[in-house]
């Protein structure tokens, strides 16, 4: 059986060209050659920091923004080549839930109208859409009687439930969730995560779950992909990635998460990447992570072929050669690092 979603070498470049006065404009490679597949009913977690390109990737998959290159196949149809009309006809099958529960629903429409809108837009009669909207409200844990209320009368968590009801209204096979719980309070986050799990168990929908919170991603995902400056640097089944991370970026991300356990926190070594995520407008040569990589420094200290870079000596492979995402542990554990098994 072919995958539900098949993304091949997807790229998005912003800017470039010249300004009005002929000065070159920096080219930002927000998404720079990403490939992955997603099976029916599967959840792929997509983790990365601000500027990693994860939100851009989510929008490219749904073609809410136009890719610069590459292909997205969804249910065996080429999304990237579809006409505007064909794309609109595919929308019911691929939906999105947004980060901002306050901004992503129209403040002037009632909850019922918001949930009914995708149905009426795709040919469901008004009365039937209203009836189904009431049932959807109940499904996401709100009272159907709340259909007449406006968004500002709901709490953040309740609004996110409305956004989820809108996304599942047409029974999609794929939902892209862009940081769906990061704007919510901790106690409410868990409600929404459990609701999403319940919906997936019932309908078999596949999720592309974008988040920066590694705990949340671990909780919901079957597989996890870690993004850094427009690339996937590691992709593996969840327990392999969290249990035995191979890429030094993943290692330092996991080490940086503060854990609610004072004993572990006090006794943990501080493994910190150096500095901050660079800019996708001026990418480093070779491996994108080498300016911050603690492992490259350790490997160089042990000898081998090194060069002068970043004010220290680094392995020449890290500085000169762009590592490919390749199987590094098991066949399903991919990492883009020259030294995946060093530490």
């Amino acid at each position: 059986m072919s995958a539900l979603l098949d993304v091949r070498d997807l790229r998005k470049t912003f800017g470039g060209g010249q300004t009005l006065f002929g000065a070159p404009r920096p080219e930002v490679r927000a998404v720079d050659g990403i490939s992955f597949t997603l099976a029916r009913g599967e959840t792929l977690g997509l983790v990365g920091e601000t500027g990693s390109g994860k939100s851009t990737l989510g929008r490219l998959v749904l073609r809410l923004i136009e890719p610069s290159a590459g292909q997205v196949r969804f249910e065996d149809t080429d999304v990237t080549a579809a006409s505007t009309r064909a794309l609109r006809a595919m929308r019911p099958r691929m939906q999105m839930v947004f980060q901002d529960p306050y901004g992503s629903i129209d403040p002037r429409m009632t909850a019922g109208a918001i949930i009914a809108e995708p149905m009426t837009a795709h040919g469901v009669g008004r009365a039937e859409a209203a009836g189904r909207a009431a049932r959807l409200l109940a499904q996401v844990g709100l009272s159907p009687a709340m259909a007449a209320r406006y968004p500002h009368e709901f709490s953040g968590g309740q609004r996110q439930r409305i956004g989820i009801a809108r996304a599942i209204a047409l029974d999609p096979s794929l939902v892209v969730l862009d940081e769906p719980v990061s704007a919510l309070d901790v106690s409410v986050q868990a409600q929404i995560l459990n609701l999403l799990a319940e919906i997936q168990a019932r309908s078999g929908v596949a999720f592309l779950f974008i988040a920066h919170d590694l705990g949340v991603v671990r909780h919901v995902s079957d597989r996890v992909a870690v993004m850094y400056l427009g690339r996937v640097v590691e992709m593996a089944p969840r327990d392999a990635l969290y249990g035995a991370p191979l890429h030094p970026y993943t290692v330092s991300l996991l080490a940086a998460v503060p854990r609610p356990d004072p004993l572990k926190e006090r006794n943990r070594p501080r493994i910190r990447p150096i500095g901050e995520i660079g800019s996708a407008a001026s990418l480093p040569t070779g491996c994108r992570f080498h300016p911050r990589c603690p492992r490259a420094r350790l490997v160089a200290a042990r000898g081998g072929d090194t060069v002068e870079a970043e004010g220290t000596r680094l392995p020449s492979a890290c500085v000169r050669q762009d590592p490919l995402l390749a199987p590094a542990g098991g066949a399903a554990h991919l990492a883009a690092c020259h030294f995946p098994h060093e530490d």
Partner: protein
Amino acid sequence: MSAAFELRGLTAAVPGEKAAIRLVEDVSLHVHAGETLAVVGESGSGKTVTFTSALGLLPKPGRVIAGQALLEGVDLLTLGPEALRRMRGARIGMVFQDPLTGLNPVFRVGAQIAEVLRAHLPLSRQAARDRAVELLARVQIPDPARRVDDYPHQFSGGMRQRVLTAMAIALGPRVLIADEPTTALDVTVQAQVLDLLGDLRDADGMAMVLITHDLGVVARQADRVAVMYAGRVVETGTVAEVFAAPRHPYTIALFRSIPDIEAPPGTQLAPIAGSPPEPARRPAGCAFAPRCFAASEAAGCHATRPPLTGTGHAAACHRQGALEIAA
């Protein structure tokens, strides 16, 4: 030993349609020199309002209606606006959540730090600038002599938060209040900034108040913790005590609802039902009772407000020690 900063029964309110709406009620906290107190709560819990009211920064029409805010024994709430202004910055520093809005985009960062210094100290322009470079070095900004002339937009989010921290510690305050200082930052940068705050506290022996919603940050950084819910402190104690054996059902439920990166696979999240009450609609009894797994009529959870009881590790719950909670 007396506390460096202490709140006693602080209550702040805004006028409402019928009666005043209490944003925070009867909040008592203290923090010693060289110690970090974490104040934990969700949005609307009053954790930020508590400190803006204590420092006279609560926006109108809100005002403090009861309580004391003692900074090394001086009640800030009795000071006039000018005396209070001199205290802020000089004796008590603040770092806020959003590193973008804290800096003025049209001035160089060095000038902004120098402005803080010159507002309180009789310094020449050059001396203030030299101090600004020193301060940037203290918050570990690389190449401070050059970066002092950069504009805020030339700094990354983490670097801006370091600049704001430099401004907050410029006058050597005895107390540093950091309101969600790392919430807007990525996790690797967050770790760096938390390390920095911890180092500064240790070096200067400052008392630090860390306002956060992240229990992981509390575990890493704080010595003691106060958990706030619906405008009140519901549990307080040392971090070790509270994390090992939380006593308030809200604290217990909070721990159960966090997706931990090291929890065994297949662990179910136990969310807290509903959402926190708005200040105007807080229930008559315990504010957490409608969402509480242990609430009971017999214990009076829905009828009366539970007081904060216990010495050291204290909780405000009618059902403390009951079976459901102990489990």
